[in-house]
């Protein structure tokens, strides 16, 4: 029994000796495979969630993400909708986009963006009481990303 225990200990340690180089050698192939197999993904609170509609406009494309209310175990009472404006040419100095985020179009808001004269600015207007206002406006390398806070 003692010999078997000792043998197991040495085998365990030897396995670690192999594991370390194997990890580095196999990293490039194993990581994507493991990610697919486990289904891990970045939280929608960071990615903005799946894109549910897209529209092409002169100078830019609009991508509207799904409303994100994701909580740890269920849905939260407040969340956001992310809208991306991806440059295809130069942005117009001023433009508007109306976003309707339910099937029958009762919940909607309008984004007005001004790009002329320095950093882009955004205004949100809505008659819907569930639209809480602008949460974030970020100017990336190729797109403007905007989050509008909403209530369920």
């Amino acid at each position: 029994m003692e010999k078997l225990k000792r043998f197991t200990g040495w085998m365990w340690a030897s396995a670690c000796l192999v594991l370390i180089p194997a990890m580095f050698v196999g990293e490039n192939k194993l990581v994507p495979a493991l990610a697919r197999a486990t289904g891990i993904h970045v939280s929608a609170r960071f990615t903005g969630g799946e894109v549910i509609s897209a529209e092409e406009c002169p100078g830019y494309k609009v991508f509207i993400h799904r409303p994100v209310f994701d909580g740890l175990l269920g849905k939260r009472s407040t969340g956001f909708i992310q809208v991306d404006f991806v440059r295809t040419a130069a942005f117009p100095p001023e433009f508007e986009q109306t976003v309707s985020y339910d099937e029958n179009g009762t919940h909607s808001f309008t984004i007005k963006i001004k790009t002329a004269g320095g950093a882009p600015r955004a205004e949100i207007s809505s008659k819907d009481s569930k639209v809480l206002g602008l949460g974030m406006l970020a100017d990336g390398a190729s797109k403007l990303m905007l989050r509008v806070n909403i209530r369920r």
Partner: protein
Amino acid sequence: MELSAAKSALFTLPMLLVTAFMLSAGKLPSGFEHWLSFAAVLAFFNTCFFMILRSGKTDRWRAPVFIALSLSFVFTFIAHMLEVRGTMALKDSVMLEGGAPFCHVVIPQTLIPLLVSRTVIFPGTITGGYAAIGAMLFLWIGFSLALGRGWCGWGCFFGGLDDMFSRLRAAPVINRINPKWTDISVAVLIVTALASAASLSPEYCKWLCPYKAVTEFPAVQNLATLIQMLIFAALFIALVIALPLLTKKRTQCGLFCPFGAFQSLANRVNPFEMRVDTQNCAKCGACITACPVFAMTQESLAAGKTRLNCIKCGKCADVCPKQAVYHHVKMTENRPSLAQRLMFLFPAFMFLTTITGGMLLQAVRRIVHFAGTGSFC
């Protein structure tokens, strides 16, 4: 456990081959800068490994590589951020585009949402890109199974900073620190893991990580981000510079880091540990004084073991006048042996040099380039 020069050279040979392969990625370097940096880093790594074997002092020759890891990490990280973003500040747009580099300290904060809903609460990418989440999780799982909390002594690219500052003074100014203070790191772990799960955002990274001061930090846009910046700077000065200088301990790693506290659990599931030969022990307490993370106490010494938070750096073994402290393979015979020591040193040093290699090569190459052209790029 000193070895003859011939035996040391013999055991260094496999490490030389592995590090040469790893540093060159299987291809010969091209150009003077590449050759010079390759030769310098290869010589540095293998001299240290040779000296670990020759002198029998693990920590003394581990530390230069470990400190080089942190310094080259900070240097190359900042250089990368300045080249890619033009600033060390993390802008909202970078976070929304998933461009934030993932680091191991985030892992305990992400675990609850990861287990509950398979979502990672971090603004990075799972695969591809710089410091992707999947790659870091993969390396962390593998390393934890192999070396447990040895990560903090052999793989953490932040730990070398407070390790370096803890070595600058010959004697400590503050001598007595109750090991119970290490419970603070457990409290930080529990609070930040729960807060992160509740907010679905990595709260330790947002508010308490001292290393933000030397890597990346949120762009100061309002009072909240200004407070965050001040907290990062204050914690870095206190825990990574001042307290290590005054105590000669790795205070950030031992007293505050939630990842370190979490990683202690991995010491249960790996085959290596530090043991004390109680028969041979002179009970001088040198190992207790030397341990940088408060893993040695009178009680643990009497039991012939370290506490669970041991980082396996080997400093306790280095300072023991009776050579009563040794690296041990669990379930095997309880006495110091060269085989047990080598069995630990090979994977640990291999991991350290593999993590360090690319960054140190890049840092040396940039410095050589700077010396020749006046530009780091």
